């Protein structure tokens, strides 16, 4: 295949990936693994050239993690699994009347991080591979320390830390129980339960007379949507003008750090990077807007690095993203295969050169950004105002309840649905009673999944 043909495949498939997943990003709750993996598999099985498959995937993840910020910020419901850690900050900015600013900060952070992450990941693929085992070995203890730290610095302080113990035990019990029944562990259902805990608790309370009496209002709630403001000059929005210097620098820093730690869960890294780079900002407005940029930037950089590093350096799906949404790039029999016994691979790792990962990865990310970013930036205020005037909260909650049901049934039938509801009720109650926010709960999930088995291994 000559160079022109390679570029044509890459650009064409990047365009397709960006359009399909740019649109799918608008649909709340469309989990990445559940949507990107099967459609990528379809593209592979249809016989698209390797470079086209790679560009399709890279454009798909970049575009989805731009547009997923639209429902998250404007409607206040998570666009997908990685949007869940942004939800609370986004809801607060929406209450302040600046949902469009939350959106612009989030996607500007996403653009900066996505473009940085590609070259950084290629570089780290080259440097880090020898150390990946060591990083994996200390991960359980890092997550325990991080969970405790995030709990203590949260508004719940020591109460949130103490509440982590029963919460982690609940997760362990539910995970073991559901794994015993289903044969495979659940994860999307846990994330959905944690992210929507406050909603699930509210709905539960609304079904009781006493809860209803407390939630009763005499008048509709008043939202003040702030005036539209264009914080960039020229026709094309410029992410470096939308963020202030420190926000852009922190987003870039978080993108570099989260690209290096490619063995960690993207959701956990999103929470961690937000706390690490913006958690100590005193001014509330500045902290919330910085959180949006840094966290959404991390959703891009983790996905990109966790795909590129294992693809370039190893050829085996050795990261949470590679094992999930990117799995077909490694293993899609009969086209791409991994022979576990012989230890050989025949997948994108063998079919593309390192420079091709860099050049076509960057090309795909830029196509995705050019397609989604200007549109979301310029239409943010109009969309926010239309949604607030036309779309009722009932319709949003109803559709979201349906999505929770569908996605849980998809992951593990009624067992998964039960898990999501129990986790949601417990998480929602802890959120309200001891101010243990969803970020702490997400870390609690990783303590249950990673640290608890490590502790048991030490004891046993």
């Amino acid at each position, binding site marked *: 295949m000559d160079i022109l043909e390679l570029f044509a495949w890459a650009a064409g498939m990047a365009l397709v990936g960006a359009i399909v997943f740019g649109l799918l990003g608008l649909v709340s709750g469309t989990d990445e693994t*559940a949507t990107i993996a*099967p459609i990528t*598999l*379809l593209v592979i099985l249809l016989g698209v050239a390797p470079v086209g498959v790679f560009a399709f995937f890279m454009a798909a993840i970049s575009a989805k993690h731009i547009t997923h910020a639209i429902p998250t910020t404007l409607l*206040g419901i998570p666009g997908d699994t990685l949007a869940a850690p942004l939800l609370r900050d986004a*809801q*607060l900015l*929406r*209450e*302040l*009347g*600046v949902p469009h*600013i939350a959106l612009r900060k989030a996607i500007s952070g996403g653009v900066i991080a996505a473009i940085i992450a590609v070259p950084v990941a290629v570089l780290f693929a080259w440097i880090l591979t020898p150390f990946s085992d060591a990083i994996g070995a200390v991960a359980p203890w890092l997550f325990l320390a991080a969970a405790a730290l995030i709990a203590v610095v949260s*508004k719940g302080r020591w109460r949130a830390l103490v509440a982590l113990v029963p919460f982690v035990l609940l997760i362990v019990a539910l995970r073991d129980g559901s794994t015993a029944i289903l044969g495979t562990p659940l994860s999307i259902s846990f994330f959905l339960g944690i992210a929507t805990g*406050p909603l699930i608790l*509210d*709905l539960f309370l609304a079904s009781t007379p006493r809860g*209803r*009496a407390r939630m*009763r*209002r*005499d*008048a*509709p*709630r*008043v*939202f*003040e*949507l*702030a*005036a*539209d403001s264009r*914080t960039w000059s020229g026709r094309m929005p410029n992410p470096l003008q939308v963020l*202030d*210097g420190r926000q852009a620098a922190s987003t870039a820093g978080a993108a570099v750090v989260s690209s290096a730690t490619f063995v960690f869960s993207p959701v956990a890294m999103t929470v961690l990077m937000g706390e690490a780079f913006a958690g100590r900002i*005193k*001014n*509330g*407005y*500045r*902290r919330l807007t910085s959180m949006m940029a840094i966290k959404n930037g991390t959703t891009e950089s983790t996905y990109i690095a966790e795909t590129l590093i294992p693809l370039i350096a190893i050829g085996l799906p050795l990261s949470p993203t590679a094992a999930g949404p990117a799995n077909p790039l490694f293993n899609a029999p009969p086209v791409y295969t991994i022979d576990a016994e012989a230890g050989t691979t025949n997948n994108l790792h063998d079919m593309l050169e390192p420079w091709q990962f860099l050049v076509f990865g960057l090309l795909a990310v830029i196509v995705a950004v050019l397609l989604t970013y200007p549109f979301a930036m310029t239409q943010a205020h109009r969309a926010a*105002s239309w949604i*607030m005037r*036309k779309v*009722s*909260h*009932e*319709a949003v*909650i*109803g*559709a*979201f*309840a*349906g*999505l929770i*049901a*569908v996605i849980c*049934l*998809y992951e593990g039938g009624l067992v998964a649905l039960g898990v999501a509801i129990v986790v949601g009720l417990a998480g929602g109650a802890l959120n309200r009673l001891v*101010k243990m926010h969803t970020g702490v709960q997400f870390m609690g999930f990783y303590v249950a999944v990673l640290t608890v088995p490590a502790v048991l291994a030490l004891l046993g």
Partner: protein
Amino acid sequence: MTQPPPAATTTESRLLEVWGDTVDQRHLVLSIVLGVGLGAPVFLGTSWLLGMTDVAEGLQRSYALLAGIAACLIAAVIAARLFGPKRTVEIGAETAGSRQEAMDAIEAEIGPLGDPDELPARLLAEVRALGLYDDLAAQHRRRTEAEGAA
């Protein structure tokens, strides 16, 4: 969150505050019935129908999922047509009060919003352009006075 409603009003108002916004309780129940009632059966029905075809097993689940998601979207469109929003939206209006309530609620959750004058130049210009500056300054003043009095 703001006015604890006396029991007498419960006969008139059907408005509840759920997940940060006001809803009509009957419309809420109907919307959820619509969302779950359309999404779940479409997902299960599509899996069942595809199970009888020779579509690859991994893809069957994915197609069923996409069908279920589409059904939820249709449910949202129907619910949005049937039930209008129960919120009052003021766009760019200079009204004191609504934002003060919101700011009090936010500060109760995450701590002080802070003094807008300490923001770096670009963010300061941003809050001014948004019309947030005066509200943030007033909130900061109220807070420092309240803390001074305590």
